[in-house]
């Protein structure tokens, strides 16, 4: 068990160890220095990049929730004509990898003029995250008794009121699951940020790191320091909300 723990902690050890060396010390193997951390912001615009990541993540997740909650409610409780078929189509979109539709997607989003700022990436992340959130919310809401919604309707709510004042508060755990999973996914993603945010000064941190790394000219200790910074938020979210993550991954099969 300890051995496995060592292996799983290896990335952190590498990141921490390497980042606490200067470029020269890294090449020669020994030593300790804060130099890389001091130079970090000069080499990598960490602050700007973390901000970009945060903006993109937050906006995408808000859209995913705003779109997924009503849709999940509709598919679970307000079934309309052909809703089962539509639901299946949306859910099967979960299986479509972005790469499969990358070219038309890129051209479309560019033509819409969205690749300049954050908008293109936000929309694409939202579209990619929606099927899962619809699926998860619909599954969750199926477990909510019909009578609860009906009680609200008899108490005077319309469908929108029922969604906003009953369904959403009850769905807090599911909302947390979607948020955590999507946060980690979007924060850690490279492809969308790389292609759909053309303006280099608005790059998310993951993209910034990858581009520098692929360029192979940046000092590795500084790269590692940047990596650590980029990994931190997702790790914190992960450690705090671990149980929602597990729940989301196994949604639908562990009942």
């Amino acid at each position, binding site marked *: 068990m300890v051995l496995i723990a060592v292996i799983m902690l290896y990335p952190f050890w590498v990141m921490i160890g390497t980042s606490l060396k200067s470029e020269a010390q890294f090449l020669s193997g020994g030593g300790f220095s804060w130099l890389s951390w001091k130079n970090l912001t000069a080499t990598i615009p960490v602050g700007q990049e973390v901000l970009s990541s945060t903006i993109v993540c937050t906006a995408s997740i808000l859209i995913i929730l*705003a779109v997924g909650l009503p849709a999940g409610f509709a598919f679970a409780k307000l079934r309309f*004509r052909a809703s089962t078929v539509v639901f299946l189509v949306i859910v099967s979109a979960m299986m479509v990898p972005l790469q499969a539709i990358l070219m038309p997607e890129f051209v479309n989003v560019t033509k819409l003029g969205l690749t300049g700022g954050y908008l293109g990436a936000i929309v694409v992340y939202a579209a990619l995250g929606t099927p899962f959130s619809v699926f998860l919310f619909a599954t969750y809401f199926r477990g909510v008794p019909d009578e609860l919604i009906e009680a609200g309707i008899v108490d005077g709510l319309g469908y929108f009121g029922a969604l906003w004042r009953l369904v959403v508060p009850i769905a807090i755990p599911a909302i947390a699951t979607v948020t955590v999973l999507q946060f980690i996914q979007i924060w850690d993603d490279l492809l969308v940020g790389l292609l759909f945010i053309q303006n280099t000064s608005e790059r998310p941190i993951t993209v910034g790191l990858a581009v520098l790394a692929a360029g192979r000219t940046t000092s590795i200790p500084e790269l590692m320091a940047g990596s650590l910074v980029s990994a931190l938020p997702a790790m914190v979210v992960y450690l705090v909300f671990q149980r929602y993550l597990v729940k989301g991954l196994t949604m639908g099969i562990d009942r």
Partner: protein
Amino acid sequence: MSVVTINGTTPIHRRGRRLSLRRRRQVAGFLFALPAIALVVGFIGVPIGQAVYYSFTEWNGLTSTWIGASAWTQAFHNSNLWTALQNNALLLLAVPFALGLPLLIAMLLHQRVVGWRIFRSIYFLPTAISWVVLGLVAERFFAYHGTLNSLIHAVGLTHVSTNMLGYESTALSALGITFVFTMIGTNTMLFLTGLATLDPSLEEAARIDGAGRWRIFRSITLPHLSRFIQLAFVMTVIALFSALFSLIFVMTGGGPGYATTTMEFLIYQTGFDQGAFGTAALYGLILFVLTAIVGVVQLRLIGSEE
């Protein structure tokens, strides 16, 4: 009823009369689902259709010329496609490890030894890290001055040195190993959840009946986990087809040569490095079909169970 009331409420009443209660529920349902439908159709559905169209064209993103079926025959004569497909196929060899190791780890954690919660958190922690970062770290691990060589030297083989990412023969293996590492957290999590739903009294009953550890694992634990293993399998294969991009991008850039170019990376290269949007769209369709097959197989498996 006063005139005022009639004047004031007639339109509302009229609308109320026309729409029956059920109809109103359905309309609300449809409206609620509409944004999701629009987003998915607009940004996933439509591009699939476009990809089909453009796969028959020569396309640079702005203008396209129809070249018909010959686009497909040309593509299949391109050796890069076959290399990429072969790389994907070879990487499938990593799947048993990406499932087997997490299964073992989950079994270990399931013993609930002292401090298992801490170990669990540690084992899952890399799940939160971007594959970009993990790729960077893996590069360090496999590099000439990296950890792997230090380990080899430490066990006494001082004259042996590797540089797995530097050679066509070994780069793909290095990528596969990294992939296995990155999947450990998620799959362990899945299996552990599966094990937690296993009724412990079953195991005890089997033990009382005189079944050994292996017997118990074979006839109780494994069958119980089958749904979870299926899910992990599908998720792993899909990740293999569509999530390696970050690793490849930072570790090898697809090389050396085309040694680590998988389908998804080939799509990126063809489209964005060579500007052959049409061909890239075509490759995308091939990837789509491959993942669809996995999805259908999965549905079949679930279907046959129920």
